[in-house]
């Protein structure tokens, strides 16, 4: 009898870019990556589950402030249109917010400073369904001295089915190092 809860989705393959990058898929489905400019997960969204959570933690190596963005992916090709994202950023008492429409990606994760931590869940609602996809993330970032927060909500309005997702670092010299696991919500 199936147990309700989170089910690890092991990618059918992963693809990475970046000078000196490496990536691997663990026996438990955890993806480990190092020095990646981009990291694509294939075959993690299936007809078995509607909704997913990606547990992501990373540091980055670079000298400028950057961020991590994502794109949905179908049979090895990224979707590069029709994203809209809204964010709310707080750093102590400083609060900033903005919305970007007609974007070429979703921006779920705050940029972090050099080699410092970033982590948080990214929820993905209905990526494999032939309907628009919704995203929600809450992220712990780092302002150089203390934690800060970055909340993001996003949509991808194309009503196609997607089986994967790509993470991209936003700088030419910035690389992502960390781990992630994709979970399906079993009902």
């Amino acid at each position, binding site marked *: 009898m199936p147990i309700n809860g989170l089910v690890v989705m092991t990618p059918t393959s992963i693809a990475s870019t970046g000078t000196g990058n490496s990536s691997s898929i663990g026996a438990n489905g955890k993806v480990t990556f190092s020095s990646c400019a981009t990291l694509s997960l294939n075959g993690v969204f299936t007809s078995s589950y509607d909704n997913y959570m990606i547990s992501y933690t990373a540091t980055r190596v670079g000298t400028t402030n950057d961020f991590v963005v994502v794109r949905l992916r179908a049979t090895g090709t*990224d979707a590069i249109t029709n994203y809209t994202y809204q964010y709310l950023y707080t750093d102590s008492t400083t609060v900033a917010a903005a919305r970007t429409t007609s974007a*070429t990606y979703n921006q779920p994760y705050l*940029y972090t400073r050099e080699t410092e931590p970033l982590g948080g869940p990214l929820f993905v609602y209905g990526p494999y369904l032939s309907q628009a996809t919704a995203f929600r993330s809450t992220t712990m970032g780092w302002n150089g001295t203390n934690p800060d927060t970055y909340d993001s909500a996003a949509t991808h309005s194309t009503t196609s089915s997607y089986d994967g997702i790509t993470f991209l670092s936003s700088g030419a010299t910035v690389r992502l190092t960390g781990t992630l696991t994709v979970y399906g919500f079993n009902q």
Partner: protein
Amino acid sequence: MPIEPFEITTVYPDGRTETRMSTPEETAQREADLAQFELDRIAREEAIAAAAAKRASAKAKLAALGLDDDEVAALLP
């Protein structure tokens, strides 16, 4: 700035790997992405700086109205 074609490495759960060079389309997309990322980074940092400046300005105006530091902090922590 134009970028060169780059390697894409695919890894499978059994440890097999395949490496290929990016196609012209993939290279062009990465180049376009990096240009957009830079615009987004600048916009983000300007928005945060603008919010902090407005906050400081508001605090100064409240102080000029006669509120003491604790009263200003109560309104704008």
